[in-house]
């Protein structure tokens, strides 16, 4: 089944089809803008990393038409995404849903920023303590005078 499907897809892709045909578009610009927002969130199943909105593939066009049909039927954006997802799986969503197997993915930026923060704090505690005292001790001052007099050292 998979083979047949991909063969059909391959045929469709081979034809010079245009992404978003003029004939499928809504006349109402606001509605059309919404169709695109939704289209950008759905992946063309045949392509490597294109949304159905950007893809020339036949399957992408079919999905775009389906999205437009759902919009006409009065579905909200979320309902449309869910409608497509039920049929094609999570793979079809450009933005992965937040659930069991994607917690790690969605936590990544938070964890990384926390790590950066903790690392920074730890490092600075070690680094800056020697700088905390804003006045020079007498020995330091004498040393500084000596270096300044000699010149050259940076």
């Amino acid at each position: 089944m998979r083979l047949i499907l991909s063969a059909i897809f391959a045929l469709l892709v081979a034809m010079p089809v245009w992404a978003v045909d003029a004939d499928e578009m809504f006349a109402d610009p606001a509605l059309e803008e919404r169709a695109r927002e939704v289209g950008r969130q759905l992946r063309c199943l045949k392509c490597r990393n294109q949304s159905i909105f950007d893809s020339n593939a036949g399957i992408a066009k079919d999905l775009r038409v389906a999205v437009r049909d759902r919009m006409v039927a009065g579905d909200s954006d979320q309902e449309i995404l869910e409608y497509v997802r039920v049929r094609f799986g999570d793979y079809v969503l450009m933005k992965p849903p937040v659930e069991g197997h994607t917690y790690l993915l969605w936590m990544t930026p938070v964890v990384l920023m926390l790590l950066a923060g903790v690392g920074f704090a730890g490092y600075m505690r070690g680094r800056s303590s020697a700088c905390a005292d804003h006045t020079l001790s007498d020995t330091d001052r004498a040393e500084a005078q000596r270096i300044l007099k000699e010149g050259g050292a940076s």
Partner: protein
Amino acid sequence: MIVELGHFALCLALAAAIVQSVVPLVGALRGSASGMRVADTAAQVQFLGAAGAFAALTYGFVVSDFSLRVVALNSHSAKPMLYKVTGVWANHEGSMLLWVVMLALFGVMISVFGKMIHTPVRAIVLAVQAMIGVGFYLFILLTSNPFDRLPMPPLDGQGMNPLLQDPGVAFHPPLLYLGYVGFSTAFSFAVAALITGRIDPAWARWMRPWVLIAWSGLTAGIALGSWWAYYELGWGGFWFWDPVENASFMPWLIGTALLHSAIVVEKRNALLTWTILLAILTFSLSLIGTFLVRSGILTSVHAFATDPERGAFILLLLFLAIGGALTLFAWRANKIGEGGVFALWSRETGLLVNNLLLTAACGVVFVGTLYPLALEMVTGDKITVGAPYFNQTFLPIFAFTMLAASVGPFLSWKRARKDVVLRRLVVTLAVSVSGTLSMSFVWLGFDAVGLFGVFVAVFLLVATLQDLAGRIGLPGVPASVALRRLMGLPRSAWGLYLGHTGVAIAAAGVVVVSIWSSEVILTVKKGEPVRVGPYDYTLMDIENTTGPNYQTSIASVHVSKKGEALTVLFPERRWYPVEQKPTTEAGIETRWHGDLYAVLGDPNGQGGFVVRYYYNPGVPWMWLGAVLMSLAALISLADRRLRIGAPGGRKLPMPQPAE
């Protein structure tokens, strides 16, 4: 015959690389000058071999020798000469050959221009370069030999993907590889530092020119690829968060961090271990990028399994190089002390924050790129991590990075005066907020996210100019004095100001085009005007003609604003009969504020044509910004070349602070 000589030259390069990876290293460890000297000869022989092999393959493409498998599969006798030549690296085998040629080139350049580098360090650097080389020569000869002959040569070749028959993408790989491969030098210097235990300002200074070249090339390469996508794919997109793009973006992010942390090593002898780690990571990410792109694993996990030889080989190289370097790092890093101390408010802190943010941003891209692969391998679940994920996670971190880049140059080394910095920041804030608001009123309109993005970019631009003004004494001194000081600024300071200006301009362009572009797709008849943003586009005529190896329809689209004719765009639709593929060439007119952009589609059979019309504000700024960044690195390089000869670990007294 020439092709066989090329094959032989490649084997010779391998032999030279084997010698180069062993003898100088042993020489350096035993303190034998003659052993270390072998590195230079070997590097030169290796380069001659690799370059000879590359020249022979180019010859094969130029004369269309279809008994060569790569030529038969990827070229065609009717192709224009330019694309016969660039076709050499537009395929797997040839591009890997280009990879090793670049590697050998960096080796020989270090050997020729790096005479002032402490000899044992240089010997080890060249040895490590050669070790990487050995791995890749073996990879090419054993799994991807471009010199394979066909027993039954075809009459003509299968041609090259017409999308790639374009000047922009033709020079994208060499520049990208200049970056990828150039970062190998940072890796080698890091390994050398770990082996010798010597890391000091001089080390950072030796390494810096090579990192600058690599970074400049990578920046230009990424921009060129993005530019190509923008005008060739025909729907105005320029960055897709595609894994292949991410593969080149990750080394860029960490490479940028490395460029900045190396400054701290050089100026203040601090962040030593961190810099070593970044140097290793940058090249590791280049290797991972090569693996991702070359193994086929990105198309699907299964593509990797059906042709595992190449993927497994690169994976092995990856483990050896990264694993080896990180093991060495874990073993030796504690020998490296942390140098100078600094206060919370200091340039060092600013650069450290920039480093952490860039690293976190890179981490997000890394996880987002590899997560679907990992998940599918572990659980079999297939998910997509597309642009919305990266936009939501990467962009906020990068906005912080840009804010840090704005504040950083205000801070002085070691300990900055907080009150002075804050006073200057108030000015920056006031100017940039009013600048953003006036752009919003006069031109852009309102969009909260968009305006915040514009604000961040303007803030960086204002801060950079403000710092430059302060540096040359404005507004306190007469213009003539300021001008003289401006001319007297070290090249590296120019690198800072141009580079940061480039980032600000490019970022502003990205934000503006992402939020405020206008797009119209529809079927039009000749002479029918269409409103696109503030402009009217009218399709006037379509002319059919032929190019060197394609047929084409060229449309003329007249653009006017309020009835006043502005220009004519010439979008093309081409058909390549050999490859049986169409391509689109967008008709673009660049103005300082944005691009007028038209694409021609199919006729509808009733005298109408499908067209895509765009007004893309901000796009030219992206390219300008990228050019500035790339140029900034080269200018900075010119500064370093003068000073690279400074001997030893002690720094010469500097009249001007420079970065």
